[in-house]
């Protein structure tokens, strides 16, 4: 008898695969061992070849369903197609990226299948064939381990960039399958346009260039603006810089300002007073540049450079160009 299947539901992002899909394939392979076959489910248009962006990550199988309506299909249409596949193959578990798309389709499918779904997971493991999903609650202050013991498939959405995608050896088999596309006439996607950056406040930005007293000159601020544009992010400041006319309380990071947890924050000329650190220390990747090697900011940083903030920023901009 063939092994039960562990599914990663591939997500499309414009004309490419959303990177969380590849991260989940690597994680799924690590979880599967000899127990499961890792199968990536890909819904794409007849002219697409998005499977080419998945093969290198080495799932056991890439199962492709093609229909020209998929790229603009609505959540309910996606969930309907996935339901048909689930009923055909009876997989053990389904993993989605906890992107807006994943967090919209997965609960719709959950309701169709009447099973359990754990949202926005930060870790996954198997206890025999039971998926143990770790999910944050109360603004990441509390972690819960959640299982779905008596219903199959088990489902989870996983926070983007929780796991690292690693190319793997091995030939993924690409198979094709079909489903019946049931259009939902009552909802139409009329337009879809790319947007670079939708952040309106520093709290919404996924990339933040943070400036402190050691990076407060006009030239540094001008460079920081360019750097933030390159990263598709926003400038944030520590409290002393809110005295400058161009920054307001809305731009401030820290206990008395915004608590942020972007994917990336690069701190320039910020020493890291505790009131500042509590506002940003849950960021996913923290970079610190400061001339004082004893600055507390280095204690919470993943990458640190001891030196002049302006000189480093100039070099970083040059390296980008």
């Amino acid at each position, binding site marked *: 008898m063939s092994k039960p299947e562990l599914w990663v539901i591939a997500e499309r992002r414009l004309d490419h695969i959303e990177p969380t899909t590849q991260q989940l394939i690597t994680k799924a392979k690590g979880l599967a061992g000899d127990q499961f076959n890792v199968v990536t489910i890909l819904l794409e248009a007849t002219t697409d070849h998005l499977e080419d962006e998945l093969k290198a990550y080495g799932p056991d199988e890439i199962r492709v369903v093609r229909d020209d309506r998929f790229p603009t299909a609505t959540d309910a249409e996606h969930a309907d197609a996935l339901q048909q596949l689930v009923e055909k193959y009876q997989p053990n578990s389904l993993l989605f990226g906890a992107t807006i798309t994943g967090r919209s389709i997965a609960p719709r499918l959950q309701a169709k299948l009447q099973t359990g779904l754990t949202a926005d997971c930060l870790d996954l493991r198997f206890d025999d064939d039971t998926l143990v999903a770790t999910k944050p609650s*109360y603004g990441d202050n509390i972690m*819960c381990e959640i299982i779905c013991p008596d219903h199959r498939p088990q489902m989870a959405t996983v926070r983007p960039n929780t796991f690292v995608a690693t190319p793997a050896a091995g030939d993924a088999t690409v198979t094709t399958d079909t489903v019946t596309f049931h259009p939902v*006439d009552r*909802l139409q996607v009329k337009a879809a346009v790319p947007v670079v950056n939708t952040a309106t406040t520093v709290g919404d930005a996924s990339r933040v260039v943070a400036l402190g007293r050691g990076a407060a000159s006009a030239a540094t601020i001008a460079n920081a603006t360019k750097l933030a544009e390159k990263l598709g992010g926003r400038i944030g400041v520590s409290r002393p810089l809110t005295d400058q006319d161009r920054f307001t309380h809305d731009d401030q990071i820290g206990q008395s300002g915004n608590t942020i947890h972007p994917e990336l924050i690069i701190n320039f000329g910020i020493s890291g007073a505790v009131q500042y650190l509590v506002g940003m220390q849950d960021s996913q990747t923290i970079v610190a540049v400061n001339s004082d090697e004893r600055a507390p900011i280095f204690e919470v940083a993943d990458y640190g450079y001891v030196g002049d903030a302006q000189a480093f920023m100039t070099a970083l901009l040059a390296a980008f160009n």
Partner: protein
Amino acid sequence: MKIVVCIKQVPETNDVTIDPVTHNLDRRGLAGVMNPFDKNAIELALTLKDSRDDVQVALLTMGPDDYAESLREGMAMGADEGYLLSDRAFAGADTLATGYVIAQALKKIDHADLILFGRQAVDADTGQVGPIVAEFLHQPQITYAASLRLSGANEVTAERLLEDTKQTLVAQLPAVVSVRSELNTPRYPTPRNIQLSFAKSLTVWHHDDLDLDDSRLGQAGSPTIVTKVYAPEPVKRELTPLTGTPSEAASQLIKALKERQLI
């Protein structure tokens, strides 16, 4: 038309702790407040009500009797009526069992044309109940709406922001919509509206008031089980020094950010 806004009451602060002896959440002394994201959904409903004469706004929540506080607060913002789904049989429900009871209650409310949710609750952070309800009611869903207007007698047009794409969607009502918090700034209750809210109708529905399959309620109807609750260890980060000249250090950083798929 009637707009029903589904709301949740949450602890006043996310600063919760674990009882060191029982390993349960210590919620002592935590007052309940309306989930802040739900106020954006109420504000949207009230804006639509202001734009047309025939719009009624109802609020609906499921929880213990003190959740009526949040209904009263929403009515003081300007909503017309409130529904509280309260029964011991509903307790311990996960998102699926919660969505089931809410969907069954919505079926009982006449002309619930537009059903609104906040983007997610600040305590559990799932955002799942909206899509679950949409599926149980066989209605179209628009999640994470960044704007919404009534574009016809029986139609809404919404913008939906994905991570790097803006979609324009048109839905025929009835439909379920969850809204982003950037959509608007919720209004405060005015003294006049607070006074008026006491005369507004607050309906409590218990188990026997709804058409329910008992096997789908509460803990028994919940596929998921929380097996462990703990406070996360602070992330211990290992500092990788960037070394050499600024240019050399910048190159090292770019390489590292690429590996982490950040650029």
